[in-house]
């Protein structure tokens, strides 16, 4: 129908509501500037704006977008994903993407929003995106560490918060566990700290954090269907492949590197930016307990961590005028991985079906010939 028209009308209404004071309490942040759809995706948005945006995506695209609350944060907030895909009668394969596991990496939720908008904007006209929407469901969590993200919006002194917001235990008075050290993947072995004040505090035990548990639970339920796992971070301009633990290699390491390098090449064609590809011990630092490692360990074949712009000039505080180019290049990289994943699953499958069919026909012909 008139999806795009409804979209822009919906946004105009939203902005008018904001300007007349009916909007959410902290929506003044983006009502101060332009309110057109194009400019929405060139700004950072706080959690209530992102929540409202998720509702809007569902409202405007009811045939292809639904949402799912799949967990709770420490402070009892919902952890919500958008499930995006053309509906089908059978069980579908899936792509998982989560953003904002580390609170201060604001460009990551911005990218999740951009990604959702892009596939919704193009699936009707782009045959490849349409095919992927038909064959796959995208499970996208715009903000995983909701408590941390909200805290990082509180004021300038909290902007650079990283971890969750669960309190320390056993006499340790600092807050937060590094969610990306809390997964059941060589938990607590390397690149972590047992000091709750440390930025790499891995928690009292694996999955001590409800946020990590929520992801683990979902991945566990869907593990046979998920073809690729993408987790989005900043900064550094890198694509990390499993494992974070040194001296262990994923069984399909060569494939992961090949696909990663292809994604980096796709990224570079957009705006010329270099993204380095490799395992974390090789190109960054060793660490265990990551969501990426967990995904690979339970059998999801393609598992990538994106570290988006920049390389340190602005770091976590990437200027808003870089949101669009960063998202454009990251989208190209993600699409490279997703297209590879999709084609491997569906064209190989089709090839297998054809081969099976011909074998069956040949056997039938041979047996019928013999009978004659």
């Amino acid at each position: 129908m008139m999806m795009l028209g409804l979209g822009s009308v919906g946004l105009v209404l939203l902005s008018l509501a904001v300007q007349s004071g009916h909007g959410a309490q902290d929506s003044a942040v983006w009502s101060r500037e332009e309110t057109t759809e194009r400019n929405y995706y060139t700004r950072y948005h706080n959690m209530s704006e992102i929540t409202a945006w998720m509702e809007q995506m569902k409202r405007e695209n009811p045939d292809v977008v639904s949402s799912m609350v799949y967990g709770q944060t420490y402070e009892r907030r919902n952890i919500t994903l958008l499930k995006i895909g053309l509906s089908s009668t059978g069980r579908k394969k899936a792509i998982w993407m989560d953003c904002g596991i580390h609170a201060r990496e604001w460009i990551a939720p911005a990218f999740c929003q951009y990604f959702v908008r892009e596939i919704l904007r193009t699936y009707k006209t782009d045959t490849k995106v349409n095919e992927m929407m038909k064959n796959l469901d995208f499970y996208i969590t715009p903000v995983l560490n909701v408590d941390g993200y909200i805290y990082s919006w509180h004021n300038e002194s909290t902007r650079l918060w990283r971890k969750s917001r669960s309190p320390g235990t056993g006499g340790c008075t600092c807050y937060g566990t590094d969610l990306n050290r809390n997964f059941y993947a060589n938990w607590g072995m390397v690149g972590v700290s047992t000091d709750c004040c440390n930025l790499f505090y891995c928690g009292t035990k694996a999955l001590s954090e409800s946020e990590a548990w929520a992801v683990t639970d979902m991945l566990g339920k869907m593990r046979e269907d998920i073809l690729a796992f993408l987790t989005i971070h900043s900064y550094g301009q890198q694509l990390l492949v499993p494992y974070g633990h040194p001296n262990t290699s994923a069984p399909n390491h060569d494939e992961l590197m090949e696909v990663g390098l292809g994604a980096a090449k796709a990224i570079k064609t957009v705006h010329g930016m270099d993204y380095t590809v490799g395992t974390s011990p090789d190109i960054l630092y060793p660490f265990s307990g990551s969501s990426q490692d967990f995904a690979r360990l339970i059998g999801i074949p393609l598992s990538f961590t994106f570290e988006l712009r920049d390389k340190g000039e602005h770091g976590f505080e990437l200027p808003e005028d870089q949101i669009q180019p960063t998202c454009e290049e990251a989208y190209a990289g993600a699409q490279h991985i997703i297209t590879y994943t999709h084609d491997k699953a569906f064209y190989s499958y089709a090839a297998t079906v054809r081969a099976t069919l011909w074998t069956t026909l040949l056997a039938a012909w041979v047996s019928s010939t013999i009978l004659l």
Partner: protein
Amino acid sequence: MGWTLFILLVVLTVVHGNPTMTVRTGSGPTVGFDQHPNSVPLGEDIQTTTEVVEEVMTTGVLNPSHYPARRAATVVQHYLNTRYGSPYRWIFFSTVHSGSSEVGVEVEDQHTLGSVSGQCSAELFFPEGEGQSAPQVQASCEGLHQSNTTAQEEAFYQQHRASNNLVSGNNIPDSYGHVEPSMKPFWQLGGVASSFIMLRESNESTLYNMAQVANFTQLETEKDQLRFNYHVLLHEMISQEIIHWKLLVTWSPEQGVQVLQTELQPKCHHCEAPPNTTN
């Protein structure tokens, strides 16, 4: 005590205060180094695209995309900023082309990427063993040719040397990454001043960037040097820590950036309480 040598070929991008400005050269002497500031040869902008040819000894080739090369390149970046940085020149590494951990590596050929990039080859020593010791760097760069920074720096200097209108600012960049145009030179000066600390504190297990200028205050001009108190936040990637430092910084076009005092600020654990609780 052992030494680890890195030889790097890096491509650096100069970030400048004025988007129309092209690449420029360094200025005055800096604290802690007795090399003459102009000892680094700076040639013309080369537009060739010849391939990088590398001959290495049999052991110890550094993979340019691996972390040792990246950390070393960042140290070289800090070094270059201490020598050549100014409110209108802040240097960032963009790519490492080749490197080796062994002495005797030859790295031939250069190609530049444009008018704001230059290519540098550098030797870097990380002293090993007990005690803190800053890395030692030697670098030579091409493509960072002479340019018109002098005019902008001079104008900035003249504008601010009279003490009747002392400037200050905070949260640069702000939470949205925004830097007011008028604050940009002070932000860059903060970055260059931070480079002195980042260079001094660097070792093979660190990767420093300046995350933010928390605040700066201009003090009275003294001995023809602009003077500032800076409070900066450094991000150390390998520990992911945000480290607070206070600096006393001076600058003039002739003397360059100097850091007279540095003071590490203690980590504020009690600041981590949720907003609705009292300390």
